[in-house]
């Protein structure tokens, strides 16, 4: 793993999230150079300082961006490229959970789709253009099991993640012969502030495990990663269920 990622210049969007931090730490340990991006500026500065100290590296380059603004999503990719002196990969870990209490709020609904689907799509396309020119590189984005099959509880979130999965699949087809690799990551429940204290969850995995699976996928070239691995089979089953049965579940 150290071998494949050493020296690669990678931008991580959503670096202050639990998975983002663990992933950036893993990339640095593997010898990559990392640009961190998130929307919470003070927290981003802390995370950049923390990761830099742990990696024995000087201050890590970082930049603030709001995933709800499409122009910002494109701009941050260019910012990463100039900060790192080039770009070899982009990883998008942004996410916004849907809050059922705000179902009637159009701004919230829009934000969910923007942060989870449209914003990442813009960032991914921008990065794809840059990487195609150099003929090699990778793109990766984190979807969700919620995007595999919509559920009554949180389908706005699920729908936006499903859109992200479709974007990544489509990009994989379009970029098939360009030397770029496009990876889809589909995590199950991951320990994070989102899942803390929730009693309805099961098989909750630590973010370090997700990060490890993602880095392994990058090193080995696996394009669709379920983390932990057993969610692949649950996804298969979920997709096969008729809607009648989904209604009861």
């Amino acid at each position: 793993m150290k071998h494949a990622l050493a020296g690669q210049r990678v931008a991580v969007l959503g670096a202050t999230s639990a998975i983002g931090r663990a992933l950036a730490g893993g990339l640095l340990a593997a010898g990559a150079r990392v640009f961190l991006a998130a929307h919470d500026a003070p927290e981003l500065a802390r995370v950049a300082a923390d990761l830099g100290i742990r990696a024995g590296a000087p201050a890590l380059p970082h930049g603030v961006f709001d995933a709800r603004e499409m122009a910002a999503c494109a701009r941050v990719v260019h910012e990463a490229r100039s900060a790192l002196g080039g770009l070899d990969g982009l990883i998008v870990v942004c996410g916004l959970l849907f809050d059922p209490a705000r179902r009637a709020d159009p701004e919230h609904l829009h934000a969910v789709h923007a942060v989870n689907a449209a914003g990442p799509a813009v960032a991914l396309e921008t990065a794809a253009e840059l990487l195609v020119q150099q003929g090699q590189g990778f793109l990766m984005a984190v979807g969700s099991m919620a995007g595999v099959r919509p559920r009554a509880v949180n389908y706005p979130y699920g729908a936006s993640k499903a859109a992200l999965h479709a974007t990544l699949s489509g990009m994989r087809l379009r970029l098939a012969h360009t030397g770029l690799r496009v990876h889809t990551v589909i995590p199950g429940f991951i320990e994070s502030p989102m899942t803390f204290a929730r009693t309805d969850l099961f098989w909750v995995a630590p973010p370090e495990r997700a990060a490890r699976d993602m880095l392994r996928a990058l090193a080995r070239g696996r394009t669709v990663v379920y983390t932990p691995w057993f969610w692949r089979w649950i996804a298969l089953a979920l997709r096969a269920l008729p809607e009648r049965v989904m209604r009861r579940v």
Partner: protein
Amino acid sequence: MRVPPPAVAEELTGWGRWPRCAARRYRPARAGAVGPHLAQAAESCWTLRGAGRAYGDAAIQDGAVLDLCGLDRLLVFDRAAGVLRAEAGVTLAEVLAVTVPAGWLPAVLPGTAQATLGGMTACDVHGKNHLTAGSWQDHTRRIALLDAHGSVRDLAPGDSLFAATCGGLGLTGVILEVEIGLEPIPSPWVLERVRAVVGIDALLGALAEVGADPRWPHAVAWLDGFEAPARARGLVHAGRIATPAECVGDPAPTSASPRVLPTRARRLPPAASWCLGPTLVRRFNAWHHARTLRAVGAADQAGGQRRVSLERFFFPLDRWRDWNRAYGARGFVQLQCLIPHAEAPSALKGLLAQLGDAGHPPYLVVMKQLGGPGHGYLSFPASGVTIALDLPRRPGLEAVLARLEPALLACGARVYLAKDAVLSREAFRAMYPAWQRFLAVRSEVDPEGRFTSALARRLGLATGAGADMS
């Protein structure tokens, strides 16, 4: 967002697994979330908690507990000057993983690297080198404290609030960040010298001899608690950081190598708690004594010396994650007290004899020398010998410990609050004469008593909202 933050309803204990409290544990994920948690959760009083390595009830209550382990970011590391600033939830192990490869070590190291910086500050921990290095607060340069009003204060040595917060057991406010000074080290190895002794008098003599020897700054002694104090076998360990010449053949640590501090701790097998009893402990004590002498004798012709890793010397029990589970569901109590030098031999013999006669011999006995007084109002260190006794909670233990209190008070002893689970209010006030000054400072920064704990209630340090049983 005015939604109250989520909390896990669970039973929390200290490291001794007793007493137990039914708590609602909140866990802010970042420093910026602490203030909103305090403001938005509908809780009248809070107990602050780090890694939960305090043995007794300093970090628990029946009510809201704020788990600060999510504040785990390192902020500044000045490699040239040896200064580190980090959030309060960073553990000592994480600090060492970063500083040791760069040639720096905190001057004061407690018995476990699993404690958090905030917890170590709140307990004003001491190490095996208190005579030369003092306690944790002597190397603390700055503390960022969030008070009950929601404002962040920057504390420096010399402030009365600094003296109240160091050793203040989380009762003055939320420690958000800590800045510490480090000492340069020539290698990540410790040269350890071990002497065997028989009897408490010989042990105290050997400890004093090491304490007076500037070549060996670290000193700790172990005693077999199952034998009569006058005849018990003991080991006195002296340590110092090894020079590079003494480390010939070892790989130099690099910043990428975590092996400097082996962190893969093993879990104790579940059956361990069934096996732990007087028979096993007697056998273990004999085996430990013999094995240590053999290892030391075999390693070096100069007699009694060997080179060990930092973790082996400073944090011997950290190898076993959750070693406290060996004491089973009933748990154990650690009595750690400081006894002035003049009283030490007779008081220690009396203490061990009383425990043995009452049928509660200590499973582990560790002793160190402490130097001058700590500077915090509730600081534990003072000049004398400190003894730590691990006592499994078998029926009758609490009564025995209550009966010991007058004897401890009579010899001028002081109990370490970070380990304490049983001390009475009156005894506490006698042992910590600065308690009123502590309360005065605290009432200014937390007038409603929002920060409390089960220990604070027991010792009469809880005021206002924190004094009521919620």
